[in-house]
């Protein structure tokens, strides 16, 4: 891993952000809603509408609007929400911090469950345990989040009343209450990823188990425990980094639905609210924040992989 490689990765993140910004801006331009009407509401007079259009520069050519938006965005100014009148950037950052908490907890839970599950299935390949985990993981990857969320909500919050149904409490306010509110969203987000990642861990592990060096390790008479821990695990788990990084994209999508259902005011819910309210500045900022998050996550994964797997030479 060289500085050149790192610079290149950073350049790619920047390029990604640029492409996404163009795309998102273009899409928001064709959204069927008048920004001025959205801003002023139903009671706006034509004069007021015209004044607002002028003030927002809605009469400028689109490329000029994009340029103004981009240059302002680079300084951290994403404009004011048309819905609430608040500045968008701090709103999105607060939302992002909540989503990241949800995402990180989900990934941790997922890893804690998926990795042992996948290993276990791989070591018992073809046996009952493997088939049962396989079947469960099929169900896991085949249920959309909104179904899982609804089922979990009914069972855990309504019937058993173990957990609060929805809402969000900042960890700083009441840590345990905060965690209790996060359990259901985290569970929902994790289900699909657990199913997916445990399958990947299983197949990676099986590949490693069939590799020459594991055969060599066994033929050197090493203890099975040491073969598993020192040789199999390390090599089987490395690709999981990449898989998890790819799943971040899926995770961000899933967060949209999950936050909506559990009333968790994160970036996904902000986006849904913004899209339904045609709150253009919020849509633009939210989509961009998501794309940046994804690009940064996959870059971090690449770096982690490069640090952990010394084989990779980036030249």
């Amino acid at each position, binding site marked *: 891993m060289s500085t050149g490689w790192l610079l290149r990765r950073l350049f790619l993140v920047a390029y990604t952000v640029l492409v996404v910004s163009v795309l*998102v801006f273009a899409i928001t331009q064709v959204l069927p809603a008048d920004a001025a009407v959205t801003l002023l509401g139903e009671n706006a007079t034509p004069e007021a509408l015209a004044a607002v259009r002028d003030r927002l520069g809605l009469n400028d050519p689109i490329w000029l609007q994009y340029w103004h938006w981009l240059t302002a965005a680079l300084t951290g100014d994403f404009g004011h929400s048309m819905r609430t009148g608040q500045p968008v950037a701090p709103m999105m950052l607060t939302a992002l911090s909540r989503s990241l908490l949800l995402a990180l907890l989900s990934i941790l839970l997922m890893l804690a469950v998926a990795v042992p599950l996948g290993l276990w299935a791989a070591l018992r390949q073809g046996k009952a345990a493997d088939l049962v985990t396989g079947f469960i993981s099929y169900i896991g990857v*085949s*249920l959309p989040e909104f179904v899982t969320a*609804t089922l979990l909500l009914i069972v855990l919050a309504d019937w058993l009343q173990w957990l609060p149904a929805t809402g969000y409490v900042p960890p700083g306010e009441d840590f345990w209450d905060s965690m209790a509110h996060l359990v259901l969203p985290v569970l929902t987000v994790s289900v699909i990823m657990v199913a997916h990642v445990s399958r990947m861990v299983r197949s990676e592990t099986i590949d490693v188990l069939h590799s020459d060096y594991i055969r060599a390790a066994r033929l050197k008479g090493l203890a099975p425990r040491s073969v598993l821990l020192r040789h199999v695990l390390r090599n089987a788990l490395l690709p999981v980094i990449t898989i998890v990084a790819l799943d971040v*994209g899926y995770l961000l999508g899933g967060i949209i*639905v999950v936050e*909506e259902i559990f009333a968790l005011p994160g970036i996904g819910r902000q986006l849904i609210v913004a*899209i339904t309210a045609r709150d253009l500045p919020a849509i633009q900022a939210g989509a961009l924040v*998501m794309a940046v998050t994804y690009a940064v996550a996959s870059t971090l994964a690449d770096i982690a992989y490069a640090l952990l797997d010394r084989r990779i030479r980036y030249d």
Partner: protein
Amino acid sequence: MTDLLRRLLRTPQGAIGSALLVLLALLCLLGPELAPRDPEAIDFLGRFRPPGAQNWLGADQLGRDVLSRLMTGARSTIPLALLATLLGTLAGAVIGTLSAYLGGRWDEAIMRNVDAVMAIPGLLLALLLVSSLGKGSLNATLAIAIAFTPGMARVTRSVALNVRAQDYVKAALARGERASFIVLREMLPNVVGPVVVETTIRVAFAVMLFATLSFLGLGAQPPAPEWGLMVAEARRFVHQAPWIILAPALAIGVTAIAFNLLGDGLRDALNPRDER
């Protein structure tokens, strides 16, 4: 081909997946004819009727027969998911194969943009697109197809790069074959296998994505018996009449499972693991 089918049906995933899909295909073809009732007919007295002799899977908030809606709805759910995936695959396959064939600077440029688009989560991209295009099943299909394109382009490209490195492609290049011949005759047939596997698994995602879009109110229009929309509409009554939500939710799950199973079965059938 028959050989592949035989191998597919020998894998447990392939066998179960194929069986389920045959059932679903029948439902798509004959569902509306076989449905016991008019899926849109409302019935004041039948509202929230539990599953029983009159309505085998119960009736919904407007007294419509859930089974009939489920059977009719297969046609508006599965073919569109398939269509979306196929469109996305086609576009992705063309971009990916082209990128791999062109190589070098072009490949780099195409793939950087594909990567950039992939940074927008698929669901978000679909949401934005449907919001712009307007609601409706066809627009949702289009949006999902577009959202799938970059991913499929990536997959196809990596397969195509693999194929391009094969000596028979080099031989064709050295022979001076036309680009179209190399892409269409030498590369594409060999790219198809792995891409078909990926596509099959993506149909499962498309079914789920469709349902999610409808759930968020951006897919099918009421009173269409689209499964995702059925779930969304039934959500308000989940405590009163859980069967209204369970039936379409399970149908979505079973369809997704069927395509996942078929995809894995195909994968195994295409590259049999060694016996060891």
